[in-house]
């Protein structure tokens, strides 16, 4: 009954041809470039990426503001991040990403709050720079323990010609704290991806490089590393940090989940940058490599296979002590990981998954599914670049269906035909597929669960995939009196 690879490829090609029929010709031509079937041995997945979304097709993508404010900056917990412009953006973003932190919110920590200049018509007409200056004073008055401010531009800022850089420089001097202007207006670029890049650049220019000439604020050790690109969703970075510390490394900075200004500032002194979300933070590790000679290494903390591989890879940059530490950590956690697999694999063996997320997850989570005996039959990225699709070739099987910046229509049709056992995507997709009777897990927010990173996270991941797929509700979607 199971199809051969060639049959799968043919079916997937036919599927692509079929969904493209619904589009007007011009659009079909454009979308065709984003849909493909992975051919083993090819250097990428054969799809175009990082191109403007087509109007009216229901893209799942967000914007540069979401990439800068929502992803990169807002988790930096002891700075105040101002949503500069109208009220909506920050309202909708608030509390949505589950960037966990420890701190006294509203006193020394601010991530789950919404600070906005709440632009009115007069601000659009007369400009918002004076208001911005006043806002920074008011922040100082009410939040003396804040360590700095970032100004996250919403769409209107760049259109009305405000000079937020001038305001930032002036106010930084006055209050004696870091003030970072960020030009992440939502219309810039084609997705949240440019927002990540802009945010990386703003950290580089306003935080990292300016503090690089100063000696590190803590005593240096040979084992200083920085976690880059972990947003601590549901505690992911904590479940990762604990392993690194146990193997003998010292984590001097977390970018940016549960992160602080001090950590960003000292990262130019790290001995190694380890990067999880390559897409959103490769810019800064490349910069630190070029300017400060800091090597960087990608790792994957989803599922025991990749965790062990990653721990060894990270350890390979250090001496025997750390390498022994890595082996010790692996040996300590392997029995639990094995017990988790022994429990859940029989329930999940052979289950097929369709993935569509952003960042690193469309490839990174595949081995965790495979650890549980599951198979990824289709995957795609919201905002990948070609280097992501190159990296994806190490993860996907021959014949996997690939969709870049999938549209609502395509995703629904693909799932309807492939009928996977699980769809792993975002909140906008969740209820569509559940209505169709398909089990679903949110893979941005971990469906309000987590952590999923590290050995401790893998147990949660396995439990959650089981509860999603094997809940009795999916046997009840058809009334018994209906004929099949």
């Amino acid at each position, binding site marked *: 009954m199971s199809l051969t690879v060639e049959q799968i490829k043919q079916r997937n090609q036919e599927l692509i041809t079929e969904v493209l029929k619904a589009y007007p010709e011009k659009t079909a031509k454009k979308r065709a470039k984003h849909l493909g079937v992975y051919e083993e041995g090819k250097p990428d997945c054969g799809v175009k990426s990082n191109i403007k979304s087509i109007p009216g097709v229901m893209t799942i993508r967000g914007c540069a503001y979401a990439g800068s404010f929502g992803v990169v900056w807002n988790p930096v917990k002891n700075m105040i991040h101002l949503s500069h412009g109208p009220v909506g953006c920050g309202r909708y973003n608030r509390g949505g990403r589950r960037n966990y932190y420890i701190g006294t*919110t509203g006193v020394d920590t601010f991530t789950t709050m919404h600070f906005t200049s709440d632009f009115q018509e007069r601000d659009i007409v007369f400009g918002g720079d004076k208001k911005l200056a006043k806002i920074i004073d*008011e922040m100082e008055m009410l939040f003396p323990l804040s360590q700095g401010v970032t100004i996250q531009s919403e*769409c209107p800022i760049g259109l009305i010609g405000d000079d937020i850089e001038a305001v930032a420089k002036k106010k930084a001097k006055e209050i004696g704290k870091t003030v970072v202007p960020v030009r992440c207006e939502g219309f810039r670029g084609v997705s949240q991806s440019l927002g990540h890049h802009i945010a990386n650049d703003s950290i580089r220019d306003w935080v990292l490089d300016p503090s690089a000439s100063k000696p590190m604020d803590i005593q240096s050790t040979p084992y200083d590393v920085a976690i880059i690109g972990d947003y601590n969703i549901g505690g992911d970075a904590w479940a990762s940090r604990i392993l690194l510390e146990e193997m003998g490394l010292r984590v001097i900075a977390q970018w940016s989940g549960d992160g602080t200004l001090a950590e960003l500032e000292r990262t130019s002194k790290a001995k190694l940058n380890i990067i999880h979300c390559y897409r959103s933070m490769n810019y800064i590790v490349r910069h630190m490599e070029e300017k400060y000679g800091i090597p960087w290494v990608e790792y994957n903390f989803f599922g025991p296979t990749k965790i062990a591989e990653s721990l060894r890879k990270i350890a390979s940059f250090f001496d025997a002590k750390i390498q022994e530490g890595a082996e010790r950590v692996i040996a300590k956690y392997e029995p639990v990981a094995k017990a988790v697999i022994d429990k859940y694999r029989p329930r999940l063996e052979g289950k097929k998954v369709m993935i569509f997320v952003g960042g690193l997850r469309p490839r990174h989570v595949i081995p965790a599914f495979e650890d549980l005996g599951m198979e990824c039959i289709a995957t795609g990225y919201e905002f990948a670049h070609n280097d992501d699709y190159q990296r994806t070739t190490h993860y996907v099987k021959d014949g996997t269906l690939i969709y870049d910046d999938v549209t609502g229509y395509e995703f629904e049709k693909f799932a309807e035909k492939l009928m996977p056992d699980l769809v792993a995507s975002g909140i906008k997709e969740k209820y569509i597929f559940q209505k169709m009777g398909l089990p679903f897990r949110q893979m941005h927010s971990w469906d309000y669960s987590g952590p999923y990173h590290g050995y401790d996270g893998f147990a949660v991941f396995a439990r959650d995939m089981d509860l999603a797929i094997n809940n009795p509700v999916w046997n009840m979607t058809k009334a018994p009196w209906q004929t099949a």
Partner: protein
Amino acid sequence: MTQHTQNPTPQNPDQVLDHLNLFRHPDYVTLFKNKRCEFERAAPDEKVEEIREWTKTWDYREKNLSREALAINPDKACQPTGAIMAAVGFEGTLPFVHGSQGCVAYYRTYFNRHFKEPSSVVSTSMTEDAAVFGGLNNLVDGLANAYNLYQPKMIAVLTTCMAEVIGDDLNAFIKVAKDKGSVPHDFNTPFAHTPAFVGSHITGYDNMMKGILSYFWDGKAGTVPPLERKPTETINFIGGFDGYVVGNLREIKRIFSLFGAEAIILSDSSEVWDTPTDGQFRMYDGGTTVAETEAALNSKATLVMQEFGTEKTREYLMEKGQEVISFNYPIGVSATDEFLMAISRLTGKPIPKELEKERGRLVDAIADSVAHIHGKKFALSADPSMAYGLTRFLLELGAQPLHIMATNGNKEWEAKMKALLDSSPFGQGCHVWAGKDLWHMRSFLFTEPVDFLIGNCYCKYLERDTGTPLIRIGFPIFDRHHHHRFPTWGYQGGLNVLVRILDKIFDEMDRNTIGIATSDYSFDLIR
């Protein structure tokens, strides 16, 4: 730096710990402590505590209230979400947002998280080139794509602030798109400009409602002759922006049918935001038909449940010659009485006996329980009309609504609220806060505390900070499920709101008396 090799690993396949319990493990507790002490350059604990205490003071409150430029946790959203809520209540309608695409991702997410339902909205994905040259091409292509892919019966066009700042003209653009064949000339494309820097989500509801009505009644943007009003006995109903729209509209339809009244619900999203899980995804479901929308011009009157957030629509209806009767989110006995008497007057039909009995049951329920509510102090944050409706109900219950806040409330609202408070002995000494935000509310709750707070899920942070128990009523509610399926209107709705308030009061009583051998003498079986 620490080694965590002493303790056993926290996970165990028989009892997997997620974030709720995992991070209580001693290894994680140590990790947090070390990170803070060694790496975060954090202020000393005493300093944090000192500032935290200071934020509870009158001094801080005065500084907080002196803010002129910064909004902190404002309790409002921007126009497009309101416009989308109005639009999806019309049959087969796809909201189409002209502007940046990220906004649409946010709007959809906002509704997904509240209703736990799909939310289908498209955008024209305008980028930098569109900012320079205008978004005409995006709109032309976008309409063609949306029309072909999602086969709506109608596309309701609205704007993000980007399109508004560069001054794109929807009427002109849609005409061009039709000339270019994006959609057929006779395909319905009502529209509304919905700048995020004017008003709030309730303004967007108003603009889209007026946009849709005027599109159909005034000649579909100059393409057909305007409709001529031929008055009928039918009554229109407009609910306004409402997180309980699913439960409420069903209740309202039941009420109209008990009356035997001819009624047209303008924007009925009670189906599309409550679709079954039966193997089929319904992008569209139910909704006000075009025929009903057109016929609504002829109705003798329109009942509007929220005076605030329907200003332009109401004015337009009156210009058309309809009687417009406005309410402010009627909750409870007397507000529902007025609503029903208005239907009775308009239809000439008596109040149905069944509703009269329901009224008696609500009064019965209040009488049974009111001892627990009488004299309790409340604070609340809501959209202006809902704040009014809740306040009126609290006064009816003998509670004291000490702080009433609407971030999107204006001077008229403030005056109306004050008049309401003046009308009741329980309203004496209560405060109305128009235009304030939830960070102001934090100061109010510390300096002039209350027993309970009523608001949406964003208010949970106030519950944490101030210890004021939160009764979740409003929009959005992300962290409790299915409340939107139950009405807040009608006597039945009043009962739901009453029970929600009572449940929290009783839960608090139990929580406060659960101390073994210290307070559990009052941990009563019967309350």
